[in-house]
Protein backbone atom coordinates (compact mmCIF):
# COMPACT_ATOMS: atom_id res chain seq x y z
CA UNK A 1 0.00 0.00 0.00
CA UNK A 2 1.29 3.45 -0.93
CA UNK A 3 0.59 5.38 2.27
CA UNK A 4 1.18 8.75 0.62
CA UNK A 5 -2.07 8.32 -1.35
CA UNK A 6 -4.24 8.09 1.78
CA UNK A 7 -6.69 10.78 2.76
CA UNK A 8 -6.18 12.43 6.15
CA UNK A 9 -9.13 10.47 7.56
CA UNK A 10 -7.80 7.16 6.27
CA UNK A 11 -4.32 7.93 7.56
CA UNK A 12 -5.65 8.91 11.01
CA UNK A 13 -7.67 5.70 11.17
CA UNK A 14 -4.68 3.61 10.14
CA UNK A 15 -2.57 5.22 12.88
CA UNK A 16 -5.22 4.56 15.53
CA UNK A 17 -5.62 0.96 14.43
CA UNK A 18 -1.83 0.63 14.42
CA UNK A 19 -1.77 -0.59 10.83
CA UNK A 20 1.26 1.65 10.36
CA UNK A 21 3.19 4.26 12.30
CA UNK A 22 3.55 7.98 11.69
CA UNK A 23 7.16 7.21 10.81
CA UNK A 24 6.00 4.92 7.95
CA UNK A 25 3.55 7.54 6.73
CA UNK A 26 6.16 10.31 6.93
CA UNK A 27 8.80 8.20 5.17
CA UNK A 28 6.35 7.37 2.44
CA UNK A 29 5.71 11.12 1.84
CA UNK A 30 9.46 11.87 1.96
CA UNK A 31 10.06 9.14 -0.61
CA UNK A 32 7.36 10.62 -2.82
CA UNK A 33 8.99 14.04 -2.44
CA UNK A 34 12.32 12.62 -3.70
CA UNK A 35 10.54 10.97 -6.60
CA UNK A 36 8.25 13.85 -7.64
CA UNK A 37 10.17 17.04 -6.82
CA UNK A 38 12.34 17.09 -9.95
CA UNK A 39 9.09 17.35 -11.95
CA UNK A 40 6.86 19.35 -9.61
CA UNK A 41 9.15 21.80 -7.76
CA UNK A 42 6.42 22.24 -5.15
CA UNK A 43 8.73 22.64 -2.14
CA UNK A 44 11.12 25.47 -1.32
CA UNK A 45 12.41 23.63 1.74
CA UNK A 46 12.08 20.06 2.96
CA UNK A 47 12.89 19.46 6.63
CA UNK A 48 13.52 15.73 6.51
CA UNK A 49 15.31 15.42 9.87
CA UNK A 50 12.79 17.58 11.71
CA UNK A 51 9.88 15.68 10.13
CA UNK A 52 11.27 12.30 11.13
CA UNK A 53 11.83 13.52 14.71
CA UNK A 54 8.25 14.87 14.84
CA UNK A 55 6.96 11.53 13.50
CA UNK A 56 8.75 9.65 16.26
CA UNK A 57 7.31 12.00 18.88
CA UNK A 58 3.85 11.46 17.37
CA UNK A 59 4.31 7.69 17.46
CA UNK A 60 5.17 7.87 21.15
CA UNK A 61 2.01 9.87 21.82
CA UNK A 62 -0.10 7.47 19.75
CA UNK A 63 1.43 4.55 21.58
CA UNK A 64 0.34 6.03 24.90
CA UNK A 65 -3.08 6.98 23.51
CA UNK A 66 -4.69 9.80 25.45
CA UNK A 67 -4.01 13.27 24.13
CA UNK A 68 -3.73 12.36 20.44
CA UNK A 69 -5.92 14.27 17.94
CA UNK A 70 -6.88 13.15 14.44
CA UNK A 71 -4.03 15.26 13.07
CA UNK A 72 -1.43 13.59 15.31
CA UNK A 73 1.33 12.05 13.25
CA UNK A 74 -0.10 13.15 9.89
CA UNK A 75 2.48 14.79 7.58
CA UNK A 76 1.56 18.12 6.02
CA UNK A 77 3.17 20.79 3.87
CA UNK A 78 3.04 24.49 4.76
CA UNK A 79 2.96 27.44 2.39
CA UNK A 80 6.17 29.41 2.73
CA UNK A 81 4.45 32.56 3.98
CA UNK A 82 3.46 30.90 7.28
CA UNK A 83 6.08 30.98 10.04
CA UNK A 84 7.47 27.71 11.39
CA UNK A 85 10.03 28.46 14.10
CA UNK A 86 13.61 27.77 13.03
CA UNK A 87 12.72 27.09 9.40
CA UNK A 88 13.29 29.54 6.59
CA UNK A 89 10.26 31.58 5.56
CA UNK A 90 10.79 33.38 2.28
CA UNK A 91 7.34 34.29 0.87
CA UNK A 92 9.17 33.21 -2.33
CA UNK A 93 10.92 36.59 -2.29
CA UNK A 94 14.60 37.43 -2.59
CA UNK A 95 14.07 40.00 0.15
CA UNK A 96 13.45 37.19 2.67
CA UNK A 97 15.79 34.64 1.10
CA UNK A 98 17.79 34.11 4.31
CA UNK A 99 15.04 34.78 6.84
CA UNK A 100 14.59 32.22 9.62
CA UNK A 101 11.23 32.31 11.38
CA UNK A 102 11.82 33.35 15.02
CA UNK A 103 8.47 31.96 16.25
CA UNK A 104 5.54 29.78 15.18
CA UNK A 105 2.38 31.09 13.55
CA UNK A 106 -0.65 30.37 15.73
CA UNK A 107 -1.88 27.72 13.27
CA UNK A 108 1.53 26.03 13.44
CA UNK A 109 1.58 26.18 17.23
CA UNK A 110 -1.81 24.45 17.25
CA UNK A 111 -0.65 21.76 14.82
CA UNK A 112 2.52 21.21 16.83
CA UNK A 113 0.45 20.82 19.99
CA UNK A 114 -1.38 18.04 18.14
CA UNK A 115 1.99 16.53 17.15
CA UNK A 116 1.40 16.97 13.45
CA UNK A 117 4.43 16.34 11.20
CA UNK A 118 5.68 19.30 9.17
CA UNK A 119 7.41 18.10 6.00
CA UNK A 120 8.49 21.45 4.66
CA UNK A 121 7.61 24.76 3.09
CA UNK A 122 5.92 25.12 -0.29
CA UNK A 123 6.34 27.47 -3.21
CA UNK A 124 4.04 30.43 -3.85
CA UNK A 125 3.76 33.57 -5.91
CA UNK A 126 6.00 36.14 -4.25
CA UNK A 127 4.16 37.48 -1.17
CA UNK A 128 1.10 35.51 -2.37
CA UNK A 129 0.59 37.89 -5.29
CA UNK A 130 -0.44 35.86 -8.29
CA UNK A 131 -2.60 33.08 -9.67
CA UNK A 132 -0.06 30.67 -11.13
CA UNK A 133 2.95 30.46 -8.76
CA UNK A 134 5.02 31.76 -11.69
CA UNK A 135 5.74 34.91 -9.67
CA UNK A 136 7.95 32.94 -7.25
CA UNK A 137 11.49 34.33 -7.34
CA UNK A 138 12.90 30.81 -6.86
CA UNK A 139 11.18 28.27 -9.11
CA UNK A 140 8.11 27.48 -11.18
CA UNK A 141 5.85 24.77 -9.78
CA UNK A 142 4.19 22.35 -12.20
CA UNK A 143 0.66 20.96 -12.01
CA UNK A 144 0.74 17.21 -11.21
CA UNK A 145 -2.35 16.73 -13.43
CA UNK A 146 -0.44 18.07 -16.45
CA UNK A 147 3.18 19.11 -16.02
CA UNK A 148 3.00 21.73 -18.78
CA UNK A 149 0.38 23.63 -16.84
CA UNK A 150 0.40 25.87 -13.79
CA UNK A 151 -0.90 24.53 -10.47
CA UNK A 152 -2.72 27.81 -9.87
CA UNK A 153 -1.70 30.25 -7.21
CA UNK A 154 -0.71 31.70 -5.06
CA UNK A 155 -0.74 28.49 -2.96
CA UNK A 156 0.41 26.48 -6.00
CA UNK A 157 3.16 24.61 -4.15
CA UNK A 158 0.74 23.51 -1.42
CA UNK A 159 -1.73 22.25 -4.05
CA UNK A 160 0.87 20.44 -6.16
CA UNK A 161 2.38 18.79 -3.05
CA UNK A 162 -0.93 17.21 -2.01
CA UNK A 163 -1.98 16.23 -5.53
CA UNK A 164 1.46 14.73 -6.13
CA UNK A 165 1.21 12.58 -2.98
CA UNK A 166 4.07 14.47 -1.31
CA UNK A 167 1.91 15.43 1.69
CA UNK A 168 -1.37 14.17 3.11
CA UNK A 169 -2.70 17.73 3.27
CA UNK A 170 -1.34 21.24 3.25
CA UNK A 171 -1.91 24.78 4.43
CA UNK A 172 -2.27 27.71 2.08
CA UNK A 173 -3.41 31.29 2.42
CA UNK A 174 -6.26 32.88 0.50
CA UNK A 175 -6.62 36.62 -0.07
CA UNK A 176 -8.69 36.61 -3.27
CA UNK A 177 -8.71 32.94 -4.24
CA UNK A 178 -5.21 31.71 -3.44
CA UNK A 179 -6.39 28.46 -1.81
CA UNK A 180 -9.56 27.86 -3.84
CA UNK A 181 -8.12 28.45 -7.32
CA UNK A 182 -5.08 26.13 -6.96
CA UNK A 183 -7.38 23.56 -5.34
CA UNK A 184 -9.60 23.81 -8.43
CA UNK A 185 -6.62 23.56 -10.80
CA UNK A 186 -5.25 20.47 -9.02
CA UNK A 187 -8.52 18.67 -8.30
CA UNK A 188 -8.47 19.21 -4.52
CA UNK A 189 -10.77 20.55 -1.83
CA UNK A 190 -9.75 24.06 -0.71
CA UNK A 191 -11.31 26.18 2.02
CA UNK A 192 -11.16 29.94 2.46
CA UNK A 193 -12.57 30.33 5.98
CA UNK A 194 -14.68 33.26 7.16
CA UNK A 195 -12.53 36.31 7.85
CA UNK A 196 -11.81 36.06 11.57
CA UNK A 197 -12.26 32.27 11.82
CA UNK A 198 -8.54 31.43 11.70
CA UNK A 199 -5.73 33.43 13.27
CA UNK A 200 -3.42 35.30 10.90
CA UNK A 201 -0.68 35.62 13.53
CA UNK A 202 2.53 34.46 11.86
CA UNK A 203 1.14 34.69 8.34
CA UNK A 204 3.19 37.13 6.27
CA UNK A 205 0.70 39.91 5.57
CA UNK A 206 -0.41 40.70 2.02
CA UNK A 207 -3.83 42.40 2.33
CA UNK A 208 -4.79 42.28 5.99
CA UNK A 209 -8.53 42.88 5.60
CA UNK A 210 -8.86 39.75 3.43
CA UNK A 211 -6.03 37.30 4.25
CA UNK A 212 -7.06 33.92 5.71
CA UNK A 213 -5.20 30.64 6.17
CA UNK A 214 -7.01 27.58 4.83
CA UNK A 215 -6.43 23.86 4.20
CA UNK A 216 -5.93 22.03 0.89
CA UNK A 217 -7.09 18.43 1.19
CA UNK A 218 -8.17 15.42 -0.84
CA UNK A 219 -11.70 15.33 0.58
CA UNK A 220 -14.29 17.58 2.19
CA UNK A 221 -14.16 15.53 5.41
CA UNK A 222 -10.41 16.17 5.60
CA UNK A 223 -10.99 19.90 5.11
CA UNK A 224 -13.37 19.89 8.08
CA UNK A 225 -10.83 18.04 10.27
CA UNK A 226 -8.11 20.58 9.59
CA UNK A 227 -10.39 23.59 9.87
CA UNK A 228 -11.69 22.47 13.25
CA UNK A 229 -8.12 22.35 14.52
CA UNK A 230 -7.12 25.75 13.08
CA UNK A 231 -10.12 27.92 13.90
CA UNK A 232 -10.88 29.88 17.02
CA UNK A 233 -10.04 33.00 18.93
CA UNK A 234 -6.42 33.97 19.29
CA UNK A 235 -5.20 36.75 21.56
CA UNK A 236 -2.55 37.56 18.96
CA UNK A 237 -5.03 38.35 16.15
CA UNK A 238 -7.68 40.80 17.33
CA UNK A 239 -9.91 40.05 14.33
CA UNK A 240 -10.44 36.41 15.36
CA UNK A 241 -13.82 35.43 16.71
CA UNK A 242 -14.61 32.72 19.24
CA UNK A 243 -15.69 29.39 17.77
CA UNK A 244 -19.42 29.59 17.24
CA UNK A 245 -21.73 26.64 17.33
CA UNK A 246 -21.29 26.43 13.57
CA UNK A 247 -23.92 23.72 13.36
CA UNK A 248 -26.22 23.86 10.41
CA UNK A 249 -29.67 22.41 10.09
CA UNK A 250 -28.84 20.79 6.81
CA UNK A 251 -31.43 19.04 4.73
CA UNK A 252 -30.91 18.62 1.02
CA UNK A 253 -34.67 18.64 0.49
CA UNK A 254 -34.95 22.08 2.01
CA UNK A 255 -31.71 23.53 0.69
CA UNK A 256 -32.07 26.76 -1.28
CA UNK A 257 -29.17 27.32 -3.67
CA UNK A 258 -28.35 30.66 -5.26
CA UNK A 259 -26.83 30.84 -8.73
CA UNK A 260 -25.13 33.81 -10.35
CA UNK A 261 -26.75 35.53 -13.32
CA UNK A 262 -25.46 34.59 -16.75
CA UNK A 263 -23.99 38.05 -17.38
CA UNK A 264 -21.68 37.39 -14.45
CA UNK A 265 -20.52 34.19 -16.07
CA UNK A 266 -19.91 35.43 -19.60
CA UNK A 267 -16.14 35.57 -19.02
CA UNK A 268 -16.16 31.94 -17.88
CA UNK A 269 -15.32 28.93 -20.07
CA UNK A 270 -18.78 27.67 -21.21
CA UNK A 271 -17.75 24.04 -20.59
CA UNK A 272 -17.10 24.88 -16.92
CA UNK A 273 -20.44 26.69 -16.60
CA UNK A 274 -22.21 23.65 -18.11
CA UNK A 275 -20.51 21.31 -15.64
CA UNK A 276 -21.51 23.46 -12.65
CA UNK A 277 -25.10 23.68 -13.88
CA UNK A 278 -25.21 19.89 -14.29
CA UNK A 279 -24.10 19.47 -10.69
CA UNK A 280 -26.68 21.96 -9.44
CA UNK A 281 -29.26 20.12 -11.57
CA UNK A 282 -28.42 16.93 -9.67
CA UNK A 283 -28.93 18.69 -6.34
CA UNK A 284 -32.26 19.99 -7.66
CA UNK A 285 -33.31 16.43 -8.47
CA UNK A 286 -32.58 15.54 -4.87
CA UNK A 287 -34.98 18.25 -3.74
CA UNK A 288 -32.94 21.44 -3.49
CA UNK A 289 -34.51 24.68 -4.73
CA UNK A 290 -32.53 26.87 -7.08
CA UNK A 291 -32.81 30.61 -7.43
CA UNK A 292 -30.90 32.88 -9.80
CA UNK A 293 -29.65 35.90 -7.89
CA UNK A 294 -29.83 39.46 -9.11
CA UNK A 295 -26.36 40.34 -8.00
CA UNK A 296 -25.02 43.08 -10.22
CA UNK A 297 -22.49 44.47 -7.74
CA UNK A 298 -20.44 41.31 -8.29
CA UNK A 299 -19.52 42.57 -11.76
CA UNK A 300 -17.36 45.10 -9.94
CA UNK A 301 -15.77 42.78 -7.39
CA UNK A 302 -12.58 42.23 -9.35
CA UNK A 303 -11.75 45.92 -9.95
CA UNK A 304 -12.60 46.60 -6.29
CA UNK A 305 -10.26 43.82 -5.23
CA UNK A 306 -7.44 45.16 -7.41
CA UNK A 307 -7.66 48.55 -5.72
CA UNK A 308 -8.01 47.48 -2.10
CA UNK A 309 -5.39 44.71 -2.09
CA UNK A 310 -2.53 46.69 -3.69
CA UNK A 311 -3.32 49.56 -1.31
CA UNK A 312 -3.04 47.29 1.72
CA UNK A 313 -0.01 45.52 0.25
CA UNK A 314 1.86 48.77 -0.34
CA UNK A 315 1.41 49.59 3.37
CA UNK A 316 2.16 46.07 4.62
CA UNK A 317 5.31 45.73 2.52
CA UNK A 318 6.75 49.00 3.82
CA UNK A 319 8.28 46.92 6.62
CA UNK A 320 10.83 45.39 4.23
CA UNK A 321 13.34 48.18 4.51
CA UNK A 322 16.70 46.46 4.94
CA UNK A 323 16.93 47.44 8.61
CA UNK A 324 15.25 44.92 10.88
CA UNK A 325 15.54 41.66 8.94
CA UNK A 326 15.88 40.26 5.46
CA UNK A 327 18.04 41.53 2.66
CA UNK A 328 19.94 44.76 3.14
CA UNK A 329 21.60 46.42 0.16
CA UNK A 330 24.98 48.12 0.43
CA UNK A 331 24.26 51.84 0.34
CA UNK A 332 25.67 55.17 1.44
CA UNK A 333 22.72 56.65 3.31
CA UNK A 334 19.52 55.52 4.97
CA UNK A 335 17.16 56.38 2.15
CA UNK A 336 19.38 54.56 -0.30
CA UNK A 337 19.26 51.47 1.97
CA UNK A 338 15.47 51.50 1.63
CA UNK A 339 15.37 52.13 -2.12
CA UNK A 340 18.06 49.68 -3.15
CA UNK A 341 17.03 46.90 -0.77
CA UNK A 342 13.47 47.05 -2.05
CA UNK A 343 14.52 47.54 -5.67
CA UNK A 344 16.79 44.49 -5.57
CA UNK A 345 14.63 42.40 -3.24
CA UNK A 346 11.15 42.62 -4.79
CA UNK A 347 10.13 41.01 -8.08
CA UNK A 348 8.14 42.64 -10.90
CA UNK A 349 4.61 41.77 -9.70
CA UNK A 350 5.30 42.97 -6.15
CA UNK A 351 6.75 46.22 -7.50
CA UNK A 352 3.73 46.66 -9.75
CA UNK A 353 1.38 46.29 -6.80
CA UNK A 354 3.38 48.58 -4.52
CA UNK A 355 3.33 51.32 -7.17
CA UNK A 356 -0.36 50.71 -7.86
CA UNK A 357 -1.18 50.74 -4.15
CA UNK A 358 0.82 53.91 -3.63
CA UNK A 359 -1.06 55.49 -6.53
CA UNK A 360 -4.58 54.62 -5.31
CA UNK A 361 -3.72 55.92 -1.84
CA UNK A 362 -2.01 59.12 -2.97
CA UNK A 363 -3.49 62.57 -2.46
CA UNK A 364 -5.73 63.47 -5.38
CA UNK A 365 -6.54 59.87 -6.27
CA UNK A 366 -7.49 58.22 -2.97
CA UNK A 367 -11.08 59.39 -3.17
CA UNK A 368 -11.66 58.27 -6.76
CA UNK A 369 -10.01 54.88 -6.27
CA UNK A 370 -9.47 53.68 -2.70
CA UNK A 371 -12.46 55.30 -1.00
CA UNK A 372 -14.71 54.39 -3.89
CA UNK A 373 -13.53 50.79 -3.80
CA UNK A 374 -14.43 50.56 -0.11
CA UNK A 375 -17.91 51.83 -0.89
CA UNK A 376 -18.35 49.25 -3.63
CA UNK A 377 -17.04 46.63 -1.21
CA UNK A 378 -19.91 47.66 1.08
CA UNK A 379 -22.40 47.23 -1.78
CA UNK A 380 -21.04 43.76 -2.48
CA UNK A 381 -21.19 42.74 1.19
CA UNK A 382 -24.71 44.10 1.38
CA UNK A 383 -25.82 42.18 -1.73
CA UNK A 384 -24.45 39.00 -0.12
CA UNK A 385 -26.41 39.74 3.08
CA UNK A 386 -29.59 40.15 1.04
CA UNK A 387 -28.88 37.02 -0.97
CA UNK A 388 -28.42 34.93 2.17
CA UNK A 389 -31.89 35.92 3.32
CA UNK A 390 -33.20 34.06 0.27
CA UNK A 391 -30.77 31.16 -0.08
CA UNK A 392 -28.50 29.15 2.20
CA UNK A 393 -25.55 28.82 -0.17
CA UNK A 394 -24.40 30.28 -3.49
CA UNK A 395 -22.81 27.95 -6.02
CA UNK A 396 -20.57 29.09 -8.87
CA UNK A 397 -17.56 27.90 -10.81
CA UNK A 398 -14.35 28.53 -8.85
CA UNK A 399 -12.27 29.61 -11.83
CA UNK A 400 -13.10 31.22 -15.18
CA UNK A 401 -10.76 28.83 -17.02
CA UNK A 402 -9.24 25.37 -16.85
CA UNK A 403 -5.58 25.20 -15.69
CA UNK A 404 -3.60 27.22 -18.21
CA UNK A 405 -0.14 26.57 -19.64
CA UNK A 406 3.01 27.81 -17.95
CA UNK A 407 3.93 31.12 -19.59
CA UNK A 408 0.48 31.66 -21.10
CA UNK A 409 -0.65 34.63 -19.00
CA UNK A 410 2.40 35.78 -17.10
CA UNK A 411 3.18 38.72 -19.40
CA UNK A 412 -0.28 40.28 -19.11
CA UNK A 413 -1.23 41.22 -15.54
CA UNK A 414 -4.85 42.11 -16.31
CA UNK A 415 -5.42 38.71 -17.90
CA UNK A 416 -3.80 37.01 -14.90
CA UNK A 417 -5.88 39.07 -12.47
CA UNK A 418 -9.05 37.77 -14.16
CA UNK A 419 -8.33 34.39 -12.52
CA UNK A 420 -9.82 35.84 -9.32
CA UNK A 421 -13.12 36.80 -10.98
CA UNK A 422 -15.29 34.39 -9.02
CA UNK A 423 -13.21 34.01 -5.86
CA UNK A 424 -12.64 37.71 -5.04
CA UNK A 425 -16.33 38.40 -4.13
CA UNK A 426 -16.45 36.14 -1.03
CA UNK A 427 -13.05 37.48 0.04
CA UNK A 428 -14.23 41.07 -0.16
CA UNK A 429 -17.32 40.22 1.90
CA UNK A 430 -15.28 38.18 4.42
CA UNK A 431 -17.38 35.07 3.74
CA UNK A 432 -16.36 31.40 3.75
CA UNK A 433 -16.02 29.61 0.42
CA UNK A 434 -15.09 26.06 -0.48
CA UNK A 435 -13.76 24.57 -3.70
CA UNK A 436 -14.93 21.04 -4.44
CA UNK A 437 -13.60 19.14 -7.47
CA UNK A 438 -16.30 18.10 -9.93
CA UNK A 439 -14.49 15.82 -12.33
CA UNK A 440 -12.50 16.71 -15.41
CA UNK A 441 -12.90 18.39 -18.78
CA UNK A 442 -10.28 17.44 -21.39
CA UNK A 443 -8.41 15.57 -18.63
CA UNK A 444 -8.11 18.75 -16.55
CA UNK A 445 -9.78 19.25 -13.15
CA UNK A 446 -12.83 21.48 -12.74
CA UNK A 447 -13.75 23.17 -9.46
CA UNK A 448 -17.12 24.15 -8.03
CA UNK A 449 -17.30 26.92 -5.43
CA UNK A 450 -19.79 26.99 -2.55
CA UNK A 451 -20.12 30.33 -0.74
CA UNK A 452 -22.03 30.71 2.52
CA UNK A 453 -22.90 33.13 5.31
CA UNK A 454 -20.19 34.11 7.79
CA UNK A 455 -19.10 31.31 10.14
CA UNK A 456 -21.21 28.71 8.33
CA UNK A 457 -18.27 26.57 7.22
CA UNK A 458 -20.08 23.47 8.47
CA UNK A 459 -22.91 24.10 6.02
CA UNK A 460 -20.37 24.38 3.19
CA UNK A 461 -18.82 21.06 4.24
CA UNK A 462 -22.19 19.32 4.27
CA UNK A 463 -23.19 20.64 0.85
CA UNK A 464 -19.66 19.85 -0.35
CA UNK A 465 -20.02 16.25 0.78
CA UNK A 466 -23.27 15.93 -1.21
CA UNK A 467 -21.47 17.24 -4.30
CA UNK A 468 -18.56 14.89 -3.65
CA UNK A 469 -20.99 11.95 -3.68
CA UNK A 470 -22.25 13.02 -7.11
CA UNK A 471 -18.76 13.25 -8.55
CA UNK A 472 -16.75 10.35 -9.93
CA UNK A 473 -14.22 9.44 -7.22
CA UNK A 474 -10.75 10.93 -7.05
Amino acid at each position, binding site marked *: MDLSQLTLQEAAQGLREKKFRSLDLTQSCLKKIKEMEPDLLAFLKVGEKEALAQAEAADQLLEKGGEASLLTGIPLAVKDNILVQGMSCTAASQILKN*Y*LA*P*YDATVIRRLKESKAVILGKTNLDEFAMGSSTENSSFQITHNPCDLERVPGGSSGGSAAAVKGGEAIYSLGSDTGGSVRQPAAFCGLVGLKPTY*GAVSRFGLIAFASSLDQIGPLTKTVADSRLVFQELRGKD*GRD*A*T*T*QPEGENVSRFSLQKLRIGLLKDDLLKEVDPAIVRRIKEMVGELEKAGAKVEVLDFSSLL*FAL*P*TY*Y*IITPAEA*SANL*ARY*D*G*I*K*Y*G*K*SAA*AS*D*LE*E*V*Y*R*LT*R*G*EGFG*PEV*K*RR*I*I*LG*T*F*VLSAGYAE*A*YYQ*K*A*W*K*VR*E*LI*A*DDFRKAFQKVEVIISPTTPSLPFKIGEKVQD*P*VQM*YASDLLTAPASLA*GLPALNVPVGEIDHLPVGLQIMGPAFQEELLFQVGEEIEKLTPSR
Partner: protein
Amino acid sequence: MIKEKEVKHLAQLARLELAEKDLPKLEKDLASILEYVGQLKKVDASKVEGRGKWPEANQRPDEARPGLSVADELLSLAPSIQDRYIKVKSVFKHGS
Protein backbone atom coordinates in the same frame (compact mmCIF):
# COMPACT_ATOMS: atom_id res chain seq x y z
CA MET B 1 -3.07 58.09 -18.13
CA ILE B 2 -0.01 57.54 -15.96
CA LYS B 3 3.25 58.97 -17.25
CA GLU B 4 6.83 57.96 -16.63
CA LYS B 5 7.36 61.06 -14.47
CA GLU B 6 4.45 59.99 -12.26
CA VAL B 7 5.72 56.41 -11.99
CA LYS B 8 9.08 57.74 -10.85
CA HIS B 9 7.39 59.96 -8.27
CA LEU B 10 5.36 57.01 -6.93
CA ALA B 11 8.50 54.90 -6.77
CA GLN B 12 10.17 57.66 -4.75
CA LEU B 13 7.18 57.79 -2.37
CA ALA B 14 7.37 54.01 -1.96
CA ARG B 15 11.18 54.06 -1.54
CA LEU B 16 11.48 51.64 -4.42
CA GLU B 17 14.39 51.74 -6.86
CA LEU B 18 13.23 50.96 -10.40
CA ALA B 19 15.56 50.15 -13.26
CA GLU B 20 15.22 52.50 -16.26
CA LYS B 21 14.78 49.50 -18.54
CA ASP B 22 11.74 48.30 -16.56
CA LEU B 23 9.89 51.60 -16.74
CA PRO B 24 8.19 51.26 -20.16
CA LYS B 25 6.62 47.87 -19.31
CA LEU B 26 5.60 49.05 -15.83
CA GLU B 27 4.03 52.18 -17.31
CA LYS B 28 2.11 50.11 -19.85
CA ASP B 29 0.94 47.58 -17.23
CA LEU B 30 -0.18 50.28 -14.82
CA ALA B 31 -2.14 52.01 -17.59
CA SER B 32 -4.04 48.84 -18.42
CA ILE B 33 -4.66 47.99 -14.74
CA LEU B 34 -5.92 51.51 -14.04
CA GLU B 35 -8.16 51.38 -17.06
CA TYR B 36 -9.56 48.10 -15.78
CA VAL B 37 -10.15 49.21 -12.19
CA GLY B 38 -11.46 52.54 -13.49
CA GLN B 39 -14.74 50.69 -14.21
CA LEU B 40 -15.69 51.51 -10.65
CA LYS B 41 -16.45 55.05 -11.78
CA LYS B 42 -19.64 53.60 -13.29
CA VAL B 43 -20.93 52.32 -9.95
CA ASP B 44 -23.35 54.52 -8.05
CA ALA B 45 -22.25 54.16 -4.45
CA SER B 46 -23.59 57.51 -3.29
CA LYS B 47 -25.88 55.84 -0.74
CA VAL B 48 -23.04 54.07 1.03
CA GLU B 49 -21.94 55.97 4.09
CA GLY B 50 -18.39 54.99 4.94
CA ARG B 51 -17.64 51.53 6.19
CA GLY B 52 -20.69 49.93 7.76
CA LYS B 53 -21.40 46.70 9.53
CA TRP B 54 -17.83 45.35 9.64
CA PRO B 55 -17.01 43.64 12.89
CA GLU B 56 -14.70 45.79 14.95
CA ALA B 57 -11.49 44.21 16.10
CA ASN B 58 -12.06 42.74 19.54
CA GLN B 59 -10.82 44.93 22.33
CA ARG B 60 -9.15 43.44 25.36
CA PRO B 61 -8.60 44.90 28.81
CA ASP B 62 -5.51 47.10 28.95
CA GLU B 63 -3.37 44.89 31.13
CA ALA B 64 0.15 43.56 30.85
CA ARG B 65 0.54 40.01 29.61
CA PRO B 66 3.56 38.02 28.56
CA GLY B 67 4.66 38.45 24.96
CA LEU B 68 6.95 36.26 22.89
CA SER B 69 10.40 35.91 24.43
CA VAL B 70 12.33 35.99 21.21
CA ALA B 71 14.36 39.17 21.52
CA ASP B 72 17.65 37.39 20.79
CA GLU B 73 16.22 35.62 17.75
CA LEU B 74 14.85 38.92 16.43
CA LEU B 75 18.18 40.66 16.96
CA SER B 76 20.02 37.88 15.20
CA LEU B 77 17.91 38.57 12.08
CA ALA B 78 18.98 42.21 11.86
CA PRO B 79 21.52 42.91 9.09
CA SER B 80 23.63 45.07 11.38
CA ILE B 81 23.75 45.29 15.17
CA GLN B 82 25.92 46.86 17.80
CA ASP B 83 25.62 45.53 21.36
CA ARG B 84 21.90 44.92 21.60
CA TYR B 85 20.91 47.71 19.21
CA ILE B 86 19.99 47.54 15.56
CA LYS B 87 22.39 49.76 13.68
CA VAL B 88 21.18 52.03 10.88
CA LYS B 89 22.82 54.52 8.55
CA SER B 90 22.62 58.09 9.79
CA VAL B 91 19.34 59.77 9.04
CA PHE B 92 20.87 63.19 8.46
CA LYS B 93 23.66 63.61 5.99
CA HIS B 94 26.97 64.95 7.34
CA GLY B 95 27.21 68.69 7.18
CA SER B 96 23.47 69.23 6.81
